[in-house]
């Protein structure tokens, strides 16, 4: 019961703010609603007993990436952009495409749902405890190589971003 309320709350919040993200005229408003959507997703993670991911989502996504977004929006803030056309002229093609994709995926999930084990068969939440330790253990043993590759990726991205944004003089 409580579970249900929490899920509906977070899911509704996430979907509503996601819709607002893609429809707002003002980019800053979009960013704010994206933050809301990400926070709602963090709530969903918490409900799924992914505590570490919950806090990673907040620290990295909300506290890091979104700050970067807001920062850049302020740097390139253009009042002109507010009065321009916000959507492409062929927006309805995109929308139709998305609806078709949605219908297809919905059908797939709906049919495949029967094959999924029900929530009753899910292992107890304590399997994922202590979450931080388990994630850390997995990251530094089984997924050591991907972890290192990810760190190299970050380094490359950092250098790339610096080179991109640096002024050519």
């Amino acid at each position, binding site marked *: 019961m409580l579970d249900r309320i929490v899920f509906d709350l977070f899911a509704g919040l996430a979907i509503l703010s996601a819709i607002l993200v893609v429809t707002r005229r003002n980019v800053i408003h979009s960013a704010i609603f994206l933050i809301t959507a990400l926070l709602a997703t963090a709530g969903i993670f918490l409900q799924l007993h992914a505590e570490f991911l919950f806090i990673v989502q*907040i620290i990295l996504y909300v506290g890091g990436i979104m700050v970067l977004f807001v920062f850049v929006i302020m740097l390139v803030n253009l009042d002109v952009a507010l009065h321009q056309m916000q959507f492409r002229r062929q927006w309805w093609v995109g929308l139709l495409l998305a609806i078709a994709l949605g219908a297809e995926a919905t059908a797939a999930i709906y049919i495949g749902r029967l094959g999924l084990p029900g929530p009753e068969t899910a292992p107890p939440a304590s399997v994922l405890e202590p979450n*931080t330790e388990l994630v850390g253990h997995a990251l530094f043993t089984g997924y050591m190589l991907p972890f290192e590759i990810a760190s190299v990726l970050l380094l490359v991205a950092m250098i790339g971003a610096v080179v991109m944004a640096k002024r050519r003089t």
Partner: protein
Amino acid sequence: MTHALQASLEALKPFLLPLIYAVAIVAVLPLLAGYLVLMERKVMAHMQVRLGPVRVGPHGLLQPIADAFKLLLKEDITPENADRLVFWLAPMLSMTAAMLALAAVPFGPGFQIADLNIGLLFVVGISSMGIFGIVLGGWASNSHYSLIGALRSAAQLVSYETAAGMAVVGALLLAGTLSLRNIVEMQENTGVWFIIAAPVGFFIYLVASIAETNRAPFDMPEAESELVAGYMTEFSGFRWALYFLAEYTNMIVVASIATTLFLGGWLRPFPTTHWLNFLDWLPAALMLGLAGYCLYRTPKQPVAIQKLVMVLVAGMFAAFAAILLAPMVATHIAGATSMALMVASWKPALLGGFWFLLKVFLYIYLFMWLRFTFPRYRFDQLMRLGWQFLIPVSIVNVMGIALGLALHRQWGWPYGVALPTTTVITLLIAAALARTGEKKEKDEAVVGEFWGTGRDA
């Protein structure tokens, strides 16, 4: 019907105590912040050969209340071209994030809203969201000063959060847990506060936390001599008060984190040394002393009502003293009635709360002291300090502590040898780093970059 009610009450029971704590914190915090402001003004005044607020109440003791009324009654101005939604939202966002972070802070052994097993990350993550309040507020004001303040604030927070995070990791390695309560218990078991085990980490956290709370000498986002008031320039009245409250709440949050991580949380100094047990009497004695001082000052107040307030304040301190004294006395009563036992059981909670708050206040006092002593850094110097000194040193510090722990656990060096050794190594590397940085700074100095230094005449 009554059954259902009872059942739901039963279900709500685990929420009851946290709820009471939460209400208590939310109710007390604004008052506490107000008195922090008074403390700051008084300390500043006495460091600057003047008296500070003295008009409202004896020694200005009622000044925060008068200030609060003034701010509440002030006209609330929204600039014409401001983004109304964001302008309305931003101060509340700041305040919410600051208050939410307090949820995981253990003020005493029993006094904590929620003991999360990711407690420390929770506090760090939530307080990092406070920056949106500043950035969005600065942007929404539609003023250049505000915008520059907001941009500075974003850059500054992102940079110094890295250093602070690294410093925190050092302490985490020592504690081996993310739960704030367990971190304190770990320090109790080790018998040593982490500031002694990891002094470099504490220093880095100190500097980074000053920068994170936008306090001088790192108060770039609101530097009043440059940007008028930075991101707060266009705010007035209650919204401005919210920002102010958020700033002081953030100070309390970072001070709490520092206290928990490095200063032993609710533990008294040297918690395991038994001949120092008389320190348990210190809180009550201190309160009694304060009460006595207030009574001594009472006849010197000029107005009758000020005398009255002074006596009331003395009474308050005396009451505190009685509360702190009660469990101490109860443990020494031989009779051991159930009442006395219960009172005696409060001892760790009461004394713990006292020590915690004392440390928090000392930490904040340090903030204030630095503020009145130092000039303000320039923005690029701040960034250079953060990226070229603090972050490398903090990484070295983490490696040093890891090395020390490895020496202790793998090779069996005693705790008291391994960690000081690595601390010395860390300090040496930091000194080398500082030297090279200084040399580079000298080479790159802007002297004569734009206009020659040729001298004639």
